[in-house]
């Protein structure tokens, strides 16, 4: 591949830390979490923002872990804004008080995406292992008062999908400009808990109807966005908008990855921003070049009309399901390995129809800030 065909990234996902007061059973962090002493410094991040902006990136998403666990978050936001980036904070909303939020606003924070585990306090306690719901509602108000854009993000799955109406009522009460209903993505901690999280076919059908109606009803007031979980879809999602095409993610320790989950892929090494300029890593590193474009594609992708739309789907999902990161994403109905996904769906739907499933223990994600 020639340098001329290297795309311009749109967004940098800055995974500032793996420390987090929540213990979500579907966390997107790797199973092996980075410790605090290994996290990048304020100064290195500031340089990275300049490098990302000069590569053409327009936005930075501060995430984690819980980015508020970084005491220097205000300085990081300021240096991202100085670099010309649009700054989003993806947060659980704790620990946060009004004074700290004001500091972040003064530093130039543009947008807060506040995550919810469901419509009630019990949802936080069950799915995140912590009491957080009341605090989240306070944070939503503080954000709006400061004229920062607010997105609510409800992570949905079998355990809370039947509470969608309640989630929509809560959304209307809090009045954000935008709400996302994000189905759990089955990697990392969520893959470990898949049997409990994947919704049933019936549940999904009902939920899509509710969401379509809400989209119509709230048009012009609240933008309602959602995505179908791709195990139930006919074609795979265009994961990250294509490998090394739109997004780059930097881990707490400075490794540069094409997505949240790529660390699980065997034989892949990721270069570090402390060792090499970001542009070089984006344009030339083996990890980014490996699945960029179409040269790597097997059949049926190679000759498929949809290859420029979904880019062969997700490499991590191919690895998790088919144990081979180079095959067509098995969720695709054209994949020779679609039977693997169908078997999971069958098992989940069967078990659910027999009801009284035994209570399985969740695998809670730990907090690497504590030993």
């Amino acid at each position: 591949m020639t340098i001329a065909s290297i795309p311009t990234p749109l967004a940098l996902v800055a995974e500032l830390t793996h420390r987090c007061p929540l213990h979500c059973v579907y966390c997107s962090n790797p199973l092996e979490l980075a410790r605090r002493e290994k996290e990048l410094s304020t100064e290195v991040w500031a340089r990275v923002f300049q490098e990302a902006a000069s590569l053409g990136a327009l936005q930075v998403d501060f995430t984690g872990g819980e980015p508020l666990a970084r005491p220097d978050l205000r300085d990081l936001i300021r240096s991202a804004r100085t670099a010309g980036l649009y700054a989003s904070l993806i947060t659980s909303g704790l620990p946060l008080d009004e004074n700290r939020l004001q500091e972040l606003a003064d530093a130039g924070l543009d947008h807060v995406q506040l995550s919810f585990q469901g419509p009630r306090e019990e949802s936080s306690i069950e799915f995140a292992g912590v009491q957080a719901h009341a605090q989240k509602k306070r944070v939503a108000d503080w954000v709006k008062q400061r004229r920062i854009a607010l997105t609510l993000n409800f992570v949905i799955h079998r355990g809370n999908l039947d509470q969608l109406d309640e989630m929509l009522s809560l959304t209307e009460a809090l009045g954000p400009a935008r709400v996302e209903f994000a189905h759990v993505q089955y990697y990392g901690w969520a893959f470990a808990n898949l049997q409990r999280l994947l919704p049933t076919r019936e549940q999904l059908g009902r939920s899509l109807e509710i969401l379509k109606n809400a989209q119509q009803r709230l048009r012009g007031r609240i933008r309602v966005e959602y995505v179908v979980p791709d195990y139930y879809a006919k074609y795979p999602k265009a994961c990250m908008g294509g490998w090394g095409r739109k997004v780059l993610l930097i881990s707490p320790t400075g490794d540069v990855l094409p997505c949240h989950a790529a660390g699980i892929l065997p034989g892949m090494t990721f270069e570090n921003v402390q060792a090499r300029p970001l542009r070089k890593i984006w344009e030339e590193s083996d990890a980014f070049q490996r699945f960029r474009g179409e040269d790597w594609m097997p059949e049926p992708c190679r000759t498929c009309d949809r290859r420029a739309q979904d880019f062969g789907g997700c490499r991590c999902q191919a690895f998790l399901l088919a144990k081979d990161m180079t095959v067509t994403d098995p969720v695709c109905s054209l994949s020779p390995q679609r039977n693997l996904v169908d078997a999971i769906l069958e098992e989940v739907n069967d078990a659910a129809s027999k009801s009284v499933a035994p209570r399985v223990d969740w695998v809670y994600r730990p907090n690497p800030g504590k030993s």
Partner: protein
Amino acid sequence: MKPLPESRPRLAPGCRLNERSSPTRMLLMPERVLRLNGPSLEIIERCDGQHTVQQIIADLQAVYSKADPPRVEHDILEYLGQLQEQRALDFE
């Protein structure tokens, strides 16, 4: 969704233009970027909570005096409606 002529559009919280110095002017907003051409930039720059929709139409009809005035009005109303659906605008 059609904005009222007397209402005053204003960029919604967290929606802003990128730096004046950059080669491409863009509207930055949560999870989205809108690239702006001449007329769309002229419109957005007037979405300041001061100009009414009517004033924006009159201004643009003057700037683009060679264009058909009803056509300009139609396009502006449609554009403002789309921005409202994206939640990039509030109307006061």
